[in-house]
């Protein structure tokens, strides 16, 4: 037990992945690349959840697996989001001929 992995290593990794994903969401102009960066963010959050589940003391009455269940639900929601997102991007592509988020601007101004 002495050479176990400290908790904050997991947290630093999750924070770094989150920051990389956030940079990706802000900088990338292709809509599919933005979706990929969103997936990075969601996975970083999942790592955070499971790390806290394993290393922390559970709240009474929450059962043995709260972190893992929440991570499974996050995976589910992320998969549904990618599916609907791809559908929306395909519609926008049919309308504007490019998958560039800067061109999807008819609601602005």
């Amino acid at each position, binding site marked *: 037990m002495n050479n176990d*992995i400290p908790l904050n290593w997991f947290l630093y990794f999750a924070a770094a992945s989150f*920051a990389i994903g956030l940079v990706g969401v802000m900088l990338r102009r292709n809509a599919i690349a933005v979706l990929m960066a969103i997936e990075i963010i969601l996975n970083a959050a999942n790592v955070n959840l499971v790390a806290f589940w394993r290393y*922390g003391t559970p709240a009474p009455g929450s059962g043995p697996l709260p972190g893992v269940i929440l991570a499974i*639900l996050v995976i589910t929601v992320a998969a549904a989001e990618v599916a609907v997102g791809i559908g929306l*991007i395909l519609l926008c592509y049919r309308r504007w001929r490019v998958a560039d988020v800067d061109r999807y601007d008819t609601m602005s101004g």
Partner: protein
Amino acid sequence: MASILFLVIAAIGLATALGTVLSRNLVRAGLYLVAFFFAIACLFVLLEAEFLAAIQVLVYIGAVAILLMFGIMLTRDTLGDDTTAIPVGWMIPGLFGGLCVFTVLAVGINNSIAPSGWTPWSGTTSRPSIIKQESDPEPAWVAERREAVNDMGRVIGVELMTRYVVAFELAGLLLTAALVGAIALAHRADSAPKPPRSVEQAAGSGPGADPPSEAGEPVASSLSP
């Protein structure tokens, strides 16, 4: 031993995340993303949740990555024209912004103020042991957690059906709504797909079976190299 393994996997994870965000070629970016998902699955195994690792590989690599590849193929500008590259003027501010976010999070992790009675996170250097000791009486949650880690599939099933049943049903509802919504979005308002007029059009329209409207021509012509 576990620390070295974690450092290797974390390095791979961060490198592949950077590859996804910075890569011009979208298919390469998708492949880096698959490697990132795999690194996250390895981290879940290190955290003793291998059922979750299997679900991660199954859902993300087996479904989401394939869906993203289909999306890349159908919105076809992969070889680095203006949309796929990061504009050069944005790179320094983007990097600065990312570093700021990471710094804020890291400071939070390091100097966390803990509620009274709990150790701060930075002080947790090893995970609570759930190995069975006969000597001292263990708190009630340790036995539950040991059973959960040893047979996670069964315990997840029990938990999803008893304690988290509302969340489970809502997730099912969400998935159904997403399914119906995605089909409704992709469905064309005009008639059912007409038969393709030529092999060129058939090859150009792929599985979406675009009717030969004005949308057919650019899609077909974009396939020829």
